[in-house]
């Protein structure tokens, strides 16, 4: 049964407020994405099997062998063209609808955020001269105009505000009313799988506006929680947003490759959908930095989407569309990396390194928020994994490693 998605974002004091028509315009882009996934995506399989694969075989004298062959076959097919074009346009209209709304209310928003910033005693650190890595500055990732780091002065929060609203729509509400399902799921995983583990200092790498960071403060209230990101407007917005949600979380503009924190100073280092937005050279450096930062016995957990090696080529092809059509340059390549080997090379003992699934926390919102109905949350949590849909059914893939005690 298709899910009727009426999910709505929780309106906190830092979040832009859309007027009637802006909201309707934004809702439409969420509906369009939902339609592309439920109405157009399933058709790609029969189109491939009954038409595109045969056309490829006729032309090349052999069936498509891998995701690159499948891509060659599919890009010529009109059904695929409609699917991919509509998906891209939905993404563009989403940002357009959000940016117009943020632009209209920017002065009020800046004031609200300045007030929240002033009332959050946890440290905030940002620097307009910060060297933003090329893998973030070269292309505007997932087509968000301006990207994570563009700013006009050392106080600018516009890109953070755009991201907070835009990513909720991008995720179609699948991440919960505060867009924090990944962080919540990882917290739950840590608490349930390692009940004795009480981290005192937690680092969230590549935190953007702190969607996944805040749940760590909520679930481990005695811990010091720090979120870092290379985007200045993101960390500034994150600091205000955490206060708006009632938590004093620290945010700093720093790179996960070289954080500048003292060695052995964290019990837990996490990241959520960070790795696929870095690069082939940055990824092993980030793993080494995690190992350096951890205390003996400390845990590294990276939550991202699964590697390609266990997927069939057609599934790989569907996922890899993000690389080509959504300004995600490292999306496909990252999935071919040997992450287990990378963690081992960074110094983690082989027997502690593994992939696992952190069940989606979405069911916790069921009933607690009016738009997250029991039926919709259940439908979301119990889906099968379908490549091309926003979130996997069931749970998030996590890579875990523990530093030697």
């Amino acid at each position, binding site marked *: 049964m298709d899910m009727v998605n009426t999910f709505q974002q929780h309106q906190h004091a830092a979040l832009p407020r859309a007027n009637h028509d802006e909201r309707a315009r934004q*809702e439409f882009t969420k509906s369009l994405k939902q339609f592309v996934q439920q109405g157009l995506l399933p058709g790609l399989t029969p189109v491939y099997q009954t038409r595109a694969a045969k056309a490829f075989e006729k032309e090349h004298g052999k069936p498509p062998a891998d995701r690159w062959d499948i891509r060659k076959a599919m890009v010529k097919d009109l059904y695929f063209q409609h699917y991919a074009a509509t998906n891209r346009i939905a993404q563009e209209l989403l940002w357009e609808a959000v940016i117009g709304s943020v632009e209209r209310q920017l002065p009020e928003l800046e004031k609200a955020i300045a007030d929240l910033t002033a009332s959050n005693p946890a440290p905030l650190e940002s620097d307009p001269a910060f060297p933003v890595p090329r893998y973030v500055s070269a292309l505007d990732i997932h087509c968000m105009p301006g990207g994570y780091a563009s700013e006009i002065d050392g106080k600018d929060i516009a890109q953070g505000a755009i991201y907070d609203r835009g990513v909720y729509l991008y995720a179609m509400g699948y991440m919960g009313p505060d867009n924090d399902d990944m962080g919540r799921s990882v917290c739950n995983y840590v608490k349930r799988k390692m009940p004795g583990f009480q981290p005192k200092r937690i680092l969230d790498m590549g935190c953007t506006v702190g969607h996944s960071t805040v749940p760590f403060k909520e679930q481990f209230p005695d811990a010091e929680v720090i979120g870092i990101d290379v985007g200045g407007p993101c960390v500034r917005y994150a600091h205000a947003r955490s206060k708006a949600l009632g938590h004093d979380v620290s945010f700093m503009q720093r790179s996960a490759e070289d954080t500048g924190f003292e060695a052995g100073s964290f019990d837990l280092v996490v990241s959520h959908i960070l790795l696929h937005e870095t690069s082939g050279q940055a990824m092993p450096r980030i793993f080494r930095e995690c190992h350096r930062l951890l205390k003996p016995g400390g845990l590294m957990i990276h939550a991202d989407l699964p590697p390609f090696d266990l997927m069939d080529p057609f599934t790989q092809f569907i996922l890899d569309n993000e690389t080509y059509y959504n300004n995600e340059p490292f999306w496909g390549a990252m999935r071919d990396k040997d992450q287990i080997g990378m963690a081992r090379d960074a110094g983690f003992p082989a027997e502690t390194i593994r992939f696992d699934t952190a069940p989606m926390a979405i069911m916790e919102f069921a009933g607690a928020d009016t738009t997250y109905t029991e039926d919709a949350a259940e439908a979301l949590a119990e889906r099968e994994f379908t490549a091309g849909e926003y979130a996997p059914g069931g749970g998030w893939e996590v890579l875990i490693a523990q530093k030697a005690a």
Partner: protein
Amino acid sequence: MRKLERNARGKRPQFYETPGMDEAMSMILVLANELSVVRDRLDTVEKVAAAKGIMLDAEIEAYEPDQATLEARELRRQDFLARLFYVARKEAAELATQDTAERYSKALDDIAVN
């Protein structure tokens, strides 16, 4: 008012082989977006009126257009359709008057010289 960036860095892919089709598709979906906004706004009008005791929804369903309204609406719909199909109208008119690309080129050449 500060203008925020509207274009994402990174060359936009082309999905269709037919030139102009990518632009046409994006324009169609922008129109669909605005149509959806208007439909939502109309729904809000009905809901707000209902909250004040005016059941617009039921009144709209019960409404019977009079003859003048029927005529005005039919004229408006035909006018809209004519605009929607203006390129087809032009093509038929060209065929009816034997207007051709050759005649157009010839006119350019003639006028340039004469």
